[in-house]
């Protein structure tokens, strides 16, 4: 898989300096020692709760923020070096769709102009053909070309999310990061957007990183899922395998905590105690141990490595075999 990887991260960490008026807060360890490779055309889901570092990982992979440690290569090229021109060329090939459908569009510009930004910046389409191209993009995401002259506030949340996707697609990217694109939407609209992304992915051969806090959303869209907790990867593997047989106690808790329509599944709920620790003061050893029902003193000793478990899954838990 690594050979064909479009994007590859090795030992990537991100530490944000602490902030505060009176005393400098401790540095926030948002992402720690993450290895991840995404193949061409692959869709990878990143799942975790707030503070798990999943959005930071997405921005690291896009090169929007520099990594504190580790290396990221996109199509073989390192992300952190290169001339302005090379950087811009790379930029075009990687795009992002945001969570907040209200904050991600410039309220003061017509949506057509915003979608056309990529065309202008990268000189993709001659000026005369731009409006036609914008129209085509709008149609591609299920809107009308006539909508191009409207302002963002004239659209509903779901429509804005479609516009956001059209803007990202305008650059003709190879790699798309969707950062919780459906979390703010009603369930009925959420399903529409997932279907749209799924459809686009197949038609355009997009490589997709889909960030979500809901495992179930990932299930229908992604090939592979990465479960993160407090900046570290807990479990990683093919969607089906992780769903059928979650190996990490955190994955299990996450799956079981999601409210279910199906009453039968509800009975086996694993209730995690307390709140996640602060990313600026993570526990030693396994970061999950403070909330884990299966934690042993040994869990505090070493940071568990991601190791093969089951057919294609990798799990970071020293007790993975004992728990089966």
């Amino acid at each position, binding site marked *: 898989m690594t050979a064909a990887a479009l994007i590859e991260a090795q030992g990537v960490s991100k530490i944000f300096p602490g*902030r*505060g*008026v*009176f*005393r*400098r*807060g401790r540095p926030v360890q948002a992402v720690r020692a993450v290895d991840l490779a995404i193949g061409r055309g692959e869709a990878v889901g990143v799942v975790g709760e707030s503070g798990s570092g999943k959005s930071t990982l997405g921005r690291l992979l896009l090169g929007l923020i520099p990594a504190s440690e580790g290396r990221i290569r996109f199509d073989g090229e390192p992300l952190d070096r290169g001339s302005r021109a090379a950087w811009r060329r790379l930029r075009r090939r990687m795009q992002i769709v945001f969570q907040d459908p209200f904050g991600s569009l410039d309220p003061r510009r017509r949506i057509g102009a915003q979608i056309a930004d990529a065309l202008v910046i990268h000189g993709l389409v001659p000026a005369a053909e731009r409006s036609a191209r914008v129209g085509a993009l709008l149609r591609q995401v299920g809107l009308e070309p006539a909508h191009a002259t409207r302002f963002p506030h004239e659209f509903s949340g779901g429509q804005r999310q479609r516009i956001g996707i059209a803007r990202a697609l305008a650059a003709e990217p190879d790699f798309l990061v969707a950062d919780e694109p459906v979390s703010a939407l009603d369930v009925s609209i959420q399903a529409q957007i997932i279907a749209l992304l799924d459809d686009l992915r197949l038609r355009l051969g997009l490589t997709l990183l889909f960030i979500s806090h809901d495992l179930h959303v990932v299930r229908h869209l992604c090939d592979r899922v990465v479960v993160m907790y407090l900046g570290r990867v807990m479990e990683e593997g093919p969607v089906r395998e992780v769903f059928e047989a979650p190996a990490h106690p955190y994955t299990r808790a996450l799956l079981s905590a999601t409210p279910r329509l199906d009453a039968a599944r509800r009975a086996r709920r694993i209730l995690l105690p307390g709140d996640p620790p602060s990313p600026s003061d993570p526990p030693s050893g396994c970061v999950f141990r403070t909330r884990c029902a299966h934690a042993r003193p040994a869990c505090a000793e070493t940071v568990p490595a991601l190791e093969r478990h089951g057919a294609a899954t990798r799990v970071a838990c020293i007790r993975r075999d004992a728990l089966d």
Partner: protein
Amino acid sequence: MLVWTVRRILVSLVLIWIVATVIFTVIHLVPGDPAELLLSSGGMAPDPAAVAELRERLGLDRPFLEQYGAFLSGLLRGDLGASMIDEYPVIDEVLLRLPRTLELIAAGAILAVLIGIPVGTQAALRRGTVFDRATSATAALLLAVPIFVVGTLLVLVFAQWLRWMPAGGYVPLAQDPWQHLTLLTMPALAVAKGLVAVVFRMTRAAVLDSLSRDFVRTARAKGLSPSRILVHHVVRNAIIPVLTVLALHMGTLLGGTVLVEYVFNWPGMSTPLLKAVEARDYPMVVGIVLTISVLFVALNLVMDLVYAALDPRIRHA
């Protein structure tokens, strides 16, 4: 917190040094010669030899850099020098005048808060009503009518017609407290004139903002009385931006109360500053400006601390 404060103080010291250098340079650059002026009072022609001698005695004949060096070394020893007019130590003049200016500004600010916050709150609560419009218009009027017009009218009405209070002047508090306060009233009102408008506008905006917050809904859901909601939740939250802006304006009033001092004969620090510039009394100008800068910087520092005390989010961030 300690590190933060120390860093702030260091940055402030650099700032004050720059201010001192700028004012020292500019005041020497400005045309006009202190010695010449000193000997020209009352439209008299001074003897050029006397002017030259005085220049020498005041050290004005030395090269600029030498004068600057002497000034800096004096400053490091905490010596602001003495007036070129009457050799009165600058620091004494500042210590004498500063409390009066601070008292005036404080009195004005208190009046502004006492009037501006309640009225601003009411205007916000009655947004769009006649009351709101009338008070907003009044605020604009207060801003628009110059202080020297208002001041003269105040004197005309209260001193000359009604004869309720003296036309102006100053009596030390220790000498006659009652007279002192009486004399403070009109200039304080004049200082409050501009501040009230500012406090009013800020309060109105902040209360409107505060009213739309979710915690006001929570307070209602708790079954709290309107007055408690208003005081404890709405105004308590609105007061932070109001105080910040008020402090900024109070800062600009240091040395900015010239007209009030002039119109009401209040012997504050702005008058000697103005007079010192007019007479090119270099040490006095530089000394007073330095004092004002130090106060301004200190005020900002204190306001940040007060801000933190009022807003726990900053205190603990």
